[in-house]
């Protein structure tokens, strides 16, 4: 195919086959996201992990990687994590391999799928970017997830954490607060380490500016945390939803090679880009289109 035509596919049929594959994956992603809401208690377990190994051992991480593989996005693995950012890579990425484009990032479908999952299913509004792509010469595709910090705080920290912050704001010692909350000192130490990690309190156990902002924001929030079964407890339901969603996409994929192409009468084609350039105003462009239609009649 020539330059300016569909990206470097060997034939139009090959381009349509890739579109069919993407339609199938998009259908599956939509169905998967619709049936995979994760309870905040499980999201919290992952957010509180401080190492990749810990994250890899959470049920949520295992569910997420299985889910992405089952919809056709390849085997995702976490390579880096900090408070508000995760980096995932996909070796041998099937999406990258579907394109013949070189020197460009191609895996927007994966970025969007991760973003949908984090935002809708985990309750963590996020922005996801492909930061390295096999089609740009990288060894594997890499996706960086940037999560809204407030959303992380809202899920990672619970009512007891807020009570600890409240006590610290009133200059109470951790031991005093743990007695008031009937919490053993080890748990208090663990919770303080999490608060330090999130820069809510400093090393001297004083509430930071970030901590003050968080506390004042949450003080006026009335929120009851939802509790419902984790989606991995009923994988059959998700698998069925994905299978059902794919049926129309499969039909598209097979039809793409069977349905006749429309033969376009080139005299009736309006190249919008050219017309917009030639026309001084949109009114002129519209009037041209109306004239074409009137001439037809």
């Amino acid at each position, binding site marked *: *195919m020539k*330059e*300016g*035509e*569909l*990206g470097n596919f060997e034939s*139009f049929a090959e*381009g*349509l086959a*890739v*579109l069919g594959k*993407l*339609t199938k*994956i*998009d*259908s599956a992603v*939509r169905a998967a996201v619709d049936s995979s809401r994760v309870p905040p208690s499980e999201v919290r377990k992952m957010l509180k992990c401080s190492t990749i190994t810990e994250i890899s051992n959470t049920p949520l991480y295992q569910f997420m990687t299985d889910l992405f593989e089952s919809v056709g996005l390849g085997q995702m693995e976490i390579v880096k994590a900090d408070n508000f950012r995760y980096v995932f890579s996909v070796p041998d990425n099937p999406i990258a391999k579907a*394109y013949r*484009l070189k020197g*460009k*990032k*191609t*895996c*927007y*479908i994966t970025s*969007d799928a991760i973003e949908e999952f984090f935002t809708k299913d985990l309750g963590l509004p996020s922005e996801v970017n492909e930061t390295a792509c096999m*089609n740009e010469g990288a060894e594997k595709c890499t996706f960086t997830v940037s999560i809204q910090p407030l959303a992380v705080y809202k899920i990672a920290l619970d009512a007891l954490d807020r009570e600890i912050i409240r006590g610290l704001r009133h200059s109470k010692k951790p031991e005093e607060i743990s007695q008031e909350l009937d919490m053993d000192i080890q748990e208090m130490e663990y919770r303080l380490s999490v608060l330090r990690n999130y820069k809510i309190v400093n090393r001297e156990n004083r509430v930071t500016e970030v901590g003050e902002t968080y506390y004042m924001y949450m003080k006026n929030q009335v929120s009851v945390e939802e509790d419902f079964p984790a989606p991995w407890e009923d994988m059959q339901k998700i698998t069925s939803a994905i299978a059902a*969603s794919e049926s*129309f*996409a499969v039909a*598209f994929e097979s039809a*793409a090679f069977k*349905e006749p*192409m*429309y*033969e*376009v*009468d*080139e005299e*009736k*084609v*309006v*190249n*919008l*880009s050219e017309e*917009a*350039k*030639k026309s*001084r*105003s*949109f009114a002129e*462009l*519209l009037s041209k*289109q109306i004239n*074409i*239609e009137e001439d*037809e009649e």
Partner: protein
Amino acid sequence: MKAYQLEEVKFAISPKDSGINIGLVWKAGKLYLAMSGIMISDGNVWYEIPIEKIRDISITEDNPPRLRINIPALDIEVSGERAETLIALRHFLLPQLVARGEDEELANLVKLWGAGLHSPLLISSLMKTDERRVYHLIEKAEKEGYISGEEITEKGIDLLSEEDVAFIKKLRGEGA
């Protein structure tokens, strides 16, 4: 020219940044994929959206899904019942967009170049962009044949509107 039908749609074409509410002129039609890009037909006219002119393609509404295709000077909005088709079409086309933002910058550079401004510092100030970015654009414009020396080429002129070309000619005393 051959085209493959993807979806029955409603569509609207509106000038970018015009402030005109084009919601008035939604038309019913069909969305097609062709070798050169996207085509939409209302039954009479085939509107061609060349792939190399698409700057961005985004989903603006979920239910029903609405796809916005952005080319220089125009926004084309397409609404269809099957979300997957429009979302997948976006994912399919995104990696292939060559224009994404840079063609408009190049056109602005060529316009200023044609008007006799060649100082990267001055151009960066007029284009409200970084000077290093201007150097990159000049290099690209030379490499891709939009400018040559202190002149703009025929290919460069093709990037501009007739109004811009007339303005440059007037400025250079060549007549409108």
